């Protein structure tokens, strides 16, 4: 049970406080409601590039990191298709340093040309390191546009291509900031060895004077239902073949979500899963085969990914996946199997609550998704899923006409 209090400043900034006196630390997590899905198709990778620029100095403070490190703190951030999330931890007695730093960069950045120039290169190196200079690194750059034709999920957070990052101008950077980095578009969670009243006082002092701005409206873009199988084959300089099958599925807050999530666990989570035992161990078609869900805020993907054992033909391996799907559809799953994946999901959740920062992030995600109580109700929702729900999920999702298949093969 995670307890919390909440208030909203006049400028629209939502603040959540979680008191945990067992730690000497405090953390501040600020989530901005902007991700790669908010980018223009001609300017992808921008939300993530912008995250880098948030460390390049703000209007009154030339360096973000230096004063935080002087106060004994550490920080980081991440961007995904849905959100951009910044977090810091520091000794609780230096909490105000965090408020000072975070409020100044919410007020305005320094917008230094040098910072833009350097972070463009850093992000390009990140693009190379993670997506181009690794075997299989570009799999998701290929899969997204195969599965999504219209929705902005069709590009990866890093962007479609390096050129989009190279082309970013200071004008773009400023426009992005003024559009999205607003108190009314953010959620702040302060957690750890803190008191509600102190957080309230500090929030009023440092954040309340920031102009509210106009919260951007997100245009709903609906991916049309997929009506026929999609397939793509690429050849790359890799030592083994790989197959991915991705199916459209529910959004994070849809009522079907948990059943679909548990279905992915039954099929492909860990060494007691069906895929592992049937296709990695018994039939030895794959060296690795797993299933998971993307968990994205809008309609997401149910993902099956495998690396083929050398010598196995991709068609044969894919038929193996199909046969496990058919077996599940025809024979169903047992109560025992469902209870197993529920227990795993429950303990994953409980272990996640050991870290204060993790709790802070979950509170922020819950608030953004419109149900902060989900931090406490998630386990009950998982437990409520029935065998019938999982079978319904399987029938509705695991259809070839709902699937995009990528063969990622060794170059001849």
């Amino acid at each position, binding site marked *: 049970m995670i307890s919390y209090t909440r208030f909203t400043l006049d400028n629209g900034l939502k603040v959540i406080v979680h008191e945990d006196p067992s730690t000497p630390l405090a953390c501040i997590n600020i989530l901005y409601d902007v991700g790669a899905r908010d980018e223009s198709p001609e300017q992808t990778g921008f939300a993530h590039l912008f995250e880098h620029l948030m460390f390049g100095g703000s209007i009154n403070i030339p360096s973000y990191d230096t004063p935080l490190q002087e106060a004994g703190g*550490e920080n980081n951030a991440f961007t995904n298709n849905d959100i951009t999330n910044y977090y810091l931890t520091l000794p609780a007695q230096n909490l105000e340093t965090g408020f000072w730093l975070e409020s100044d960069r919410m007020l305005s950045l320094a917008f230094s040309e040098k910072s833009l120039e350097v972070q463009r290169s850093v992000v390009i190196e990140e693009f190379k390191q993670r997506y181009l200079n690794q075997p299989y690194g570009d799999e998701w750059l290929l899969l997204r546009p195969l599965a999504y034709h219209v929705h902005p999920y069709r590009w990866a957070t890093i962007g479609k291509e390096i050129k989009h990052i190279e082309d970013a101008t200071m004008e773009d950077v400023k426009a992005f900031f003024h559009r999205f980095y607003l108190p009314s578009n953010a959620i702040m969670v302060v957690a750890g060895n803190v008191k509600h009243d102190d957080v309230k006082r500090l929030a009023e002092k440092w954040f309340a004077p920031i102009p509210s701005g106009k919260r951007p409206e997100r245009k709903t873009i609906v991916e049309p239902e997929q009506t026929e199988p999609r397939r793509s084959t690429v050849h790359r300089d890799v030592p083994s073949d790989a197959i991915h099958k991705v199916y459209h599925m529910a959004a994070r807050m849809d009522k079907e979500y948990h059943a679909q999530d548990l279905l992915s666990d039954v099929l492909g989570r860990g060494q007691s899963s069906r895929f592992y035992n049937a296709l990695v161990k018994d039939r030895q078609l794959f060296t690795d085969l797993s299933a998971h869900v993307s968990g994205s805020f809008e309609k997401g993907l149910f993902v099956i990914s495998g690396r083929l054992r050398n010598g196995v033909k991709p068609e044969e391996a894919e038929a193996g996946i199909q046969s496990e799907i058919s077996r599940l559809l025809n024979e169903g799953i047992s109560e025992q199997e469902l209870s197993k994946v529920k227990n795993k999901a429950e303990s994953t959740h409980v272990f996640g609550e050991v870290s204060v920062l993790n709790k802070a992030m979950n509170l922020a995600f819950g608030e953004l998704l419109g149900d902060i109580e989900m931090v406490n109700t998630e386990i009950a929702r998982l437990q409520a899923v029935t065998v019938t729900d999982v079978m319904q999920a399987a029938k509705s999702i695991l259809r070839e006409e709902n699937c995009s298949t990528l063969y990622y093969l060794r170059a001849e």
Partner: protein
Amino acid sequence: MIQPDRLTAPATHPIDTVNPQFPEQFSLSNGMEVYSLSAGSQEVLKVELLFAAGTSRYSNSLIPSFTASMLQEGTHQRNAAQIANDVDDYGAFLELDIDKDFSGITLYSLNKHLAKTLPVVEDILMNSTFPEEEWEIMRSNRIQKYTVNLGKVGFVAGKRFQELLYAETPYGTSFDVNDYRAMQRNELIHFYQNQYAPTAAKLFVSGKMDDSIHQLLESTFGQLKGDGKFLPALALATPVTFSERKQFIPKEDAIQSAIRIGRRMFPKSNPDYFAMKVLTTILGGYFGSRLMTNIREDKGYTYGIGAGVMPYRSDSYFYISTEVGSDVCSAALDEIYKEIRTLRDELVSNEELDLVKNYLLGSLLKSFEGPFERMERFKNLHLYGVGNDYYQQYTAAIRAVSPHKLQELAKTWLQEDDLLELVVGKK
């Protein structure tokens, strides 16, 4: 609306000295050493059986590694699928880890299920059979994964760097695909029989503890027989002189090159270990470090660069590690050496030193968050031959270290001619 004074940083307060919580220590009936640390509010536990059976304990370092992994592939009572099921049915996690010094069987379990999950650990510890078929599957899968890894400049560099740095010691044994093929199943079985006696383990338990947990440990592990002791650290030969300090492994299609630079140092018990930690932090141990500031934040050559000291039981090594655009590889190397030279030639300013001291003290405080982290901090002293006052000493040494001391260390330990340099990719 009144604007606060945004130009002046709020006053900061000194960072508290960490007050480490150490585990309670006792033995089970058969002599197995137990370290038990109770903390946290969640009903979760981490149970770890640790052996001094790391990869340095066998001439083919793959043998210890496969032995550890194969523990969950079958016992007299359970096949691999049953082991996985018996763990997953109760939402537990079983991890088999290995490094140069240690191997561990680790169970994460909710308290309420421990009585069901702990027997699986006992079973794999006592009754593993290393089934032939599972062994062949694992071997061929691992060979395939190894081949994939050979396509990554970072992997190749990390592996080769170890081999060169620790040449002619058990920490530097090299292996390739042929060593995977040469392994015999019998070698695993012998290694298991020799190294995994229950009395050769140390048992670390952390989380929300109570008496019933201790009783469960006793009833599960306390009667197990075996002869074997937790092995002392291996003595390492003194470092070899490099015939050629600059090593290069070309990879034609690399768009980034991996760089590793470093040298062997001294064990954690050396009094200079703390000051060396401060020095390497200044160089490359945090986001604001000199290498990050210069090579990432000023030049944009890399996504990340780091430096530090990595401890083993009877040694440690200094390293710098990065992946940079192949086109800027030699420029990056020049800048790295420039930063090392500056540490030798110029005193660190008090301002920078104070910042790093605060950063390190804040990190130390953070590293004690939660029961599992606290146990890790205990293991980090207990297993490395240093006393329980280690963190007090660390705090005192960080506060006391002077710019002159750091320069002296840089001059002693960071001479360019003594540093091994490895580049994998293009330069």
